[in-house]
C-alpha cells in the first residue's frame, strides 16, 4: 500500500504577470524518487519555489496536499517544519552568522514544531560533527558565516548537511549538480542517497542526465511549457540524453 506524500493537482502559478506553471499534476509516494528534467526556462525552479511558498510566486489555481494537509495554506516556515526541504540552486550568503549558529536555529525550530525538546549544545555539536565528517565538511567551514565565500561545492555540501540533520520527509533538489565538479557531485549524491528511505521521498530537478547516474530515480518526468509532457522510468533520462529536448519543446509550441 503506497502512502502519497505529495499530491499536486492541476497546479497553475505565475510570477508577476507571467503564467509559468500550467496545469501541473504529479503524485509522489513515500519511498519514491522522482526526477523532473526539462529545458532551461521551462519553469523547473519556479515549481520548487511555488511548492516551498516563496513570496512573489503566486498560485492561481490547483491543489497541493502534503502528507494529507493543504500545503498551499501554510507559511514558508510551516512547510519547512512539516518536512519540506529545498536544496537550493544558489544558496544565499548570510554575513556574520556562523554555520553552526544557523544550523542550531534551524534544527531547534523544526524540533519545536515536532514537540521535541531543543537539542542541548553538546548533543547538537556531536550530531553536526558526525554528519559533517561524512560530507567532508571541515570544522573551520562550520565556523564560517553561512555560504560567505563558499565555493560551489562547499555550498552544496552545506545544503546536503542540512538535509541530513533536518531529516525532512520530502526533499526537492533544484539543480543540485550546478557548479559541482565530479568529486563534489559524488560526495553530495552519496549524502543525498544516504537519506533515502521508505518513509521519505525526493524530487530531483535537473537539466542534465549526469546527476541521475548518481541519484537514481524511480520515475522520470519531462517538463516543458509549465507541465509534464511525458513520464517514464529511469531509461527515459538516457533516451533524452541522446535525443535532446527539442521534440518536446516543439510539440508544445
Amino acid at each position, binding site marked *: 500500500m503506497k502512502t502519497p506524500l505529495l499530491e499536486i493537482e492541476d497546479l497553475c502559478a505565475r510570477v508577476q504577470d507571467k503564467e509559468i506553471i500550467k496545469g501541473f499534476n504529479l503524485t509522489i509516494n513515500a519511498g519514491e524518487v522522482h526526477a523532473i528534467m526539462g529545458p532551461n526556462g521551462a519553469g523547473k525552479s519556479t515549481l520548487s519555489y511555488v511548492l516551498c511558498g516563496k513570496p512573489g510566486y503566486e498560485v492561481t489555481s490547483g491543489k497541493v496536499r502534503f502528507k494529507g494537509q493543504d500545503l498551499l495554506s501554510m507559511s514558508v516556515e510551516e512547510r519547512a517544519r512539516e518536512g519540506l526541504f529545498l536544496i537550493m540552486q544558489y544558496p544565499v550568503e548570510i554575513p556574520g552568522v556562523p554555520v553552526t549558529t544557523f544550523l542550531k536555529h534551524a534544527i531547534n*525550530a523544526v524540533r519545536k514544531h515536532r514537540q521535541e525538546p531543543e537539542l542541548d549544545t553538546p548533543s547538537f555539536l556531536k550530531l553536526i560533527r558526525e554528519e559533517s565528517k561524512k560530507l567532508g565538511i571541515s570544522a573551520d567551514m562550520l565556523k564560517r558565516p553561512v555560504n560567505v565565500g563558499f565555493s560551489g561545492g562547499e555550498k552544496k555540501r552545506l545544503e546536503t548537511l542540512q538535509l541530513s540533520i533536518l531529516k525532512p520527509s520530502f526533499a526537492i533538489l533544484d539543480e543540485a549538480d550546478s557548479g559541482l565538479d565530479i568529486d563534489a557531485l559524488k560526495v553530495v549524491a552519496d549524502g543525498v542517497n544516504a537519506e533515502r528511505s521508505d518513509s521519505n521521498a525526493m524530487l530531483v530537478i535537473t537539466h542534465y542526465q549526469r546527476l541521475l547516474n548518481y541519484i537514481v530515480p524511480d520515475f522520470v518526468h519531462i517538463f516543458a511549457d509549465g507541465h509534464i509532457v511525458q513520464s517514464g522510468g529511469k531509461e527515459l533520462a538516457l533516451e533524452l540524453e541522446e535525443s535532446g529536448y527539442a521534440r518536446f519543446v516543439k510539440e508544445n509550441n
Partner: protein
Amino acid sequence: MSTETEKPEIIDESGDKYKYGFVTDIASDSAPMGLNEDIIRFISAKKGEPDWLLEWRLQAFRFWQKLEEPTWAKLHYDKIDYQSLHYYAAPKQKVSPKSLDEVDPELLATYEKLGIPLKEQEALAGVVAVDAVFDSVSVATTYRAKLAEQGIIFCSISEAVKHHPDLVRQYLGSVVPYTDNFFACLNSAVFTDGSFVYIPKGVRCPMELSTYFRINAKNTGQFERTLIIADEGSYVSYLEGCTAPQRDENQLHAAIVEIVILKDAEVKYSTVQNWYPGDKDGKGGVYNFVTKRAACRGANSKVSWTQVETGSAVTWKYPSCILQGDNSVGEFYSVAITNNLQQADTGTKMLHIGKNTTSKIISKGISAGRSNQTYRGLVKVSPHASGARNYSQCDSLLIGASCGSHTVPYVENRNKTARLEHEATTSKISDEQLFYCRQRGIGEEEAVSLIVNGFCKEVMQHLPLEFAIEAAKLINISLEGSVG
C-alpha cells in the same frame, strides 16, 4: 511609606515591549522647576560643594546663556523648554548611606528589578562593581573597599569632590571644557551626579566597573557627569547601562563622560543605552544629548568605545578620541538601532595629534519602521601627526521601506604621510536571505534577528560577555514587530 508600583504610568496598548518602563514610587527631594543662578546655587549647596566648583558651574551657566542649541544634526524634535524642567531630584534617604544596609530597600528593589543587584554577594560573583545613579544622585557603589586595597577609587563624583578634590579639580572639564558645546555647557552648570574612577599607576583593575543610570522622577532632566582617570600603565574596563520609565512626555538627558588616559594606559568603555524610546507613534521617550570624549594624553595609550544604542527618542552622541600621545590608539565600535519614530545622529571624532596614532571606526546602523538614522563622523589629522592611520567602516542595514539611513563622514587631513581608509555600505535584509532562513524552518522574526545579529557581530564581540548577551536580547526586543 513607599510602595512600589509596577505598572507603567502609561498603559501602552501598542504592545510595546519596553520592560523597564515602571516607575518607582519613592519620595523625592527636588529643586524648584526652572533654571537660574539660584537653582545652581541650590544644587551646589545640596551637594555641599566647595566654592571653586560653584564658581565653575556659574561660569558655565553664564556662558550657556549666550549659546544656541545646535541645529546641524539630522534630528527633528519639539523645542525643549529649559525652564520647565527640574534640574535636581533625589530620592529621600539618609544623606550618604555608609553601607548598603542603609540604602532604602525601595531603591535596592528597583535595581533588583532592573537586573542590577546591588548586594555585593550577588553582584555577578564579584566580577562587576556597580555605581547606581538614580535621577540626580548616586545611591550606591559596590565593592569600594575591595577596590581601595589596590588604590582604585570608584565612587560617585559628588563624593570624589569631597574626598579627592585635587584630582577632580585637576581633571574636571579638562577633556570637555564647558565651552565645548551647548549641551556640555548645560551639563557643566547643573550636573548632579555620576561616577568617578581613578586607576593608579600600573594597576590593572581586577573587575569590570559599571554605572547604571536610571531616570525616575517626572519632568526631570538627568545631567550626569562621569570622570575616569587611568594613570600610567593602568587598565580598566567600564560599563554603562541606562533605562527610564515609560512616560508620555519627553525626558531630557544631557551627560558628559570625560576620560583621561596617561602613558601606556588603556580604557575600554562600553555602553548599552536603553532609555525609553517612546511609543509606536513617537510619543514620549528620552532626548539623549551626550558628550563623551577620551584624551589619550600619554604615549602608547589606548581607548576603545563600544556602544549599543537601542533606546531614546532622539540620540545625539559622538564618543570621541583625542590621540595626543605618540602611538596612541582610538577605537569606536557602534551598533545603533532605531525603530518606529526614533531618531539617532551618532558617530565619532578621531583627532590625530601625536605621531603614529591609529584609529578604527566600525559603525553598524540598523533602521526599521519610520525611523531615521545618521552616522556622522570626523577623522582629523593634524600637521604633526605623521604616520597616522585610520580605518573607517560604516554599514547600514534597512528593514522595510519607510526608514532612512545617512552617512556623513568628514575627513580633514593635513599630513601627507597619513593613511586613511573609508568603506561604507547600505543594504537591506534581502528577500532571498529571509526565504533561505524560513525554508529551514526559522520563523521570520527570528530570521531577522539572526541576520541583524550577524550584521552587528564585529561590534558585539567587543562587549564584555555578560553585556553582549544582554545587548543581543535588546536588539531582538528593539526590532520586534519590524517585519511582516
